[in-house]
């Protein structure tokens, strides 16, 4: 909130807060604490509606009053994107946490946005199913949060990202409209696919209040194998060989760091007989192959351990350029005195952690971003230390930015939602 807020504005806020209390009940509106700050920006109040209708009303009133709203799920990824230009009201989905309907025989589930990923997975597992998504911090992250941040991990290789799993959405727009698209069936082409528009929009177009997903059967058996390689080129060869084979692997990643040899992990899921045959085929392709614990797949999340002073970025490159990218990271890391570790999936998305002084980190980042961008890729910042000099989280957006602004203008014309956090200042 602006420190020089005028007396009149204070009056507007007081009157708004009273209206909001009437909607959600006095115990669900509170003054924001320091812990509620979003990337260093201190909001005024936190509101926790119980229903999507309440949420939409809170949003509409804030929008009418010209006050900015930061949607919040589990709060695990609030630092992603750029710091907000303004932050008055934290609109929390924590009480919108019901699983509305799990139709296991149809392989679909409808869920409210504030439900944690783990709670959803536990419910699905009772019927031998799962949302085929390995999100970060599932015990705390919410359905709405992972969708807005478009978070997915290694399982994407087989099951696609959230855009392939979400089949319906309800959004609260800043004018209070509750709009749905898609539906409850997996196959459906009626109307525009707003669920894809909302996925990865970082809450800047509307607040996701409900989502419908297609779910998958839980695997009967999973096995992980790893192979140590001598160089990034050799890792790339392993990735290429597995990807170009007829193996039906579920995930395939490289773990690399400044000071250790790269390892490639392969995940198989299926039946006992099927996996036996696949293992035999993999052994012909790669040697020496070792069985690994499934914790190999936590490597992405482990990048965040003790990362207060580190930078974590998501890099997207062509699958064939993984080794070249890792070589560039190695070279720039040495040059700018930053230690690094990375987890890169075979489909070309990697997570990179850099440790070093803020000055070194910023100079390394500037040069690093040029690497993927020169090959039609991208590097976006997910986590930054508070001392890092300003650095745009998103990089080059390309020639569709004016259209993105037009979409934003249509759905959130007053820029009430998450102002300034998204691409191009949206």
């Amino acid at each position: 909130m602006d420190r020089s807020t005028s007396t009149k504005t204070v009056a507007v806020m007081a009157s708004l807060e009273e209206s909001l209390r009437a909607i959600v009940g006095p115990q669900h509106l509170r003054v924001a604490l320091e812990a509620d700050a979003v990337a260093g920006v201190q909001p005024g109040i936190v509101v926790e509606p119980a229903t999507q209708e309440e949420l939409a009303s809170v949003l509409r009133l804030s929008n009418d009053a010209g006050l900015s709203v930061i949607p919040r799920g589990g709060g695990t990824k609030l630092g992603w994107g750029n710091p907000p230009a303004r932050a008055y009201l934290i609109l929390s989905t924590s009480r919108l946490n019901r699983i509305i309907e799990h139709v296991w025989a149809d392989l679909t589930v409808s869920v409210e946005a504030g439900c944690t990923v783990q709670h959803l997975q536990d419910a699905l597992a009772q019927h031998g199913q799962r949302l085929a998504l390995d999100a970060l911090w599932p015990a705390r992250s919410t359905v709405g949060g992972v969708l807005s941040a478009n978070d997915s991990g290694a399982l994407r290789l087989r099951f696609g990202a959230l855009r392939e799993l979400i089949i319906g959405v309800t959004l609260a727009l800043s004018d209070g409209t509750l709009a749905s698209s898609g539906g409850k069936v997996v196959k459906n082409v009626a109307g525009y696919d707003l669920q894809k528009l909302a996925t990865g929009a970082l809450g800047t177009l509307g607040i996701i209040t409900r989502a419908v997903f297609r779910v998958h059967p839980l695997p009967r058996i999973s096995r992980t194998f790893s192979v140590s390689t001598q160089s990034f080129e050799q890792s790339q060869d392993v990735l290429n060989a597995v990807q170009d084979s007829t193996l039906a692997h579920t995930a395939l990643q490289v773990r690399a760091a400044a000071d250790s040899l790269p390892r490639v992990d392969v995940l198989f899921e299926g039946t006992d007989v099927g996996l036996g045959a696949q293992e035999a085929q993999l052994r012909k392709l790669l040697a020496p192959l070792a069985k690994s614990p499934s914790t190999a797949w936590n490597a992405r999340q482990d990048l965040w351990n003790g990362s207060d002073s580190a930078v974590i970025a998501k890099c997207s490159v062509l699958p064939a350029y993984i080794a070249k990218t890792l070589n560039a990271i190695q070279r720039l890391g040495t040059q700018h005195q930053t230690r690094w570790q990375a987890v890169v999936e075979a489909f070309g998305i990697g997570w990179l952690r850099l440790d070093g002084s803020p000055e070194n980190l910023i100079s390394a980042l500037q040069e690093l971003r040029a690497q993927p961008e020169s090959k039609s890729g991208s590097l976006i910042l997910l986590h930054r230390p508070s001392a890092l000099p300003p650095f745009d989280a998103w990089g080059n957006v390309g020639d569709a930015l004016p259209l993105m602004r037009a979409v934003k203008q249509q759905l959130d014309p007053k820029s009430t939602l998450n102002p300034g956090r998204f691409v191009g200042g949206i």
Partner: protein
Amino acid sequence: MDAHILEKLRAIVGARGLITSPEELRTYDSDALTNFRAMPRAVLLPSSTEEVQAIVRVCHREKIPFVARGSGTGLSGGALPVENGIVISLTRMNRILEVDLANAQVVVEPGVLNLDVTGRVEERGYFYAPDPSSQSVCSIGGNVAENSGGAHCLKYGFTTTHVLGLEVVLPDGSLIHLGGKTLDAPGYDLAGVFVGSEGTLGIATKIILRVVKRPECVQTLLAAFPSTNEAGAAVSGIIAAGMLPAAIEMMDNLAIQAAEAAVHANYPNCGGLLLVELDGPFAEVKELMSHVNEICRANGASEIRLAQSEAERALVWKGRKAAFAAMGRISPNYIVQDGVIPRTALPQVLSEIERLGKEAGLRVANVFHAGDGNLHPLVLYDKRIPGQEDAAEKLSNRILELCLAAGGSITGEHGVGEDKKKMMSKMFAEPDLDTMQRVRCAFDPLQLSNPTKVFPRPRLCGEKPGEYVPHPLESAGIADRF
């Protein structure tokens, strides 16, 4: 349309790229849904992105509505011209521009035929997964517009799953790029919105497609059941056992008869035929197929056949893919519907369709993607019999209402187009449609690109995004801007 505009258009595409004579225009007056027809003023056949841009710029300046068209195989009237408007046919833009198997992608122009993509990569063991039944003639541009599916989307996903990026000519003639060769390009997933928008947001002039490695083994099983109820129970059993087949298709007796008459697929004559395809590593497919076999037997299958050769497998699929066209063998006219239901509602919806059919005195053949609940009821009728066409249309709409009542959708893969736009307000509430139209306004504020489709009524886009308008509270000095 003034002659000078036609001259401008002729200058862009040359005399051979402009069609204006009524006889030739008639070819373009409908897509494969022939009960909707409209005469365009001109059809243009551009050969490049620049020509498409130049045409669209003229349309934008002169406020002439235009409709993009691929192969014209659509089944919802999506490529129906606007009367006296322009049709932009993309058939001449049919080059495969780039094959990059190291990154499992292919870049194509919109006029490339679906099957030709697989044709270019199959030698290296890859294929393009979306496989609408019309895949030998339909174009990728059309597939993008409709977000086409096919029998194998149960496992592999739809067109939208396989489109990585697009070059798009917006309705004002500007050129933009959505998505790209790498995943998760920063910004909104506008490629996700564009695919399936039925030509209402602009024209795709280049498409980056993802291709998929062919599995080690594919097996196809045919199982004959006394009726679709038992066949449906077997499908539930397969899903409950935690399997995700590459495809599960079902046909009822009328559909079997038609397919037999048309292509002699050698289907067993039964009340409900199930076609189950599994793919993957050989050992796993073999093991799971024996489970499928057991489940089918347990649910009363009288005959089970596993295709023994690639030729047998191809024949099984030929029968299924020819099913629509085969209706011509058993009925002079038919309407194809494309409703979707939650799969569990299948027995109840099918018996209701049967009841409604009897009530209307019409036969309904059922061919459907049973794995994902996409029904293709074919309402058979004879146009020459007075009143039958009307009755068939009514029945057909009643079936869609049934799908909606069961929690489904009015279209699984054919699109809304002209045909089902009136049903949209039965599926969506006004705020839903209004929000979609707000997105459309961002792409096409003048509503020139296929303007009359998808939505039941137009929405004015109002003021174009422009300068900041102070809020009344602000003007009154009650609030400040932060």
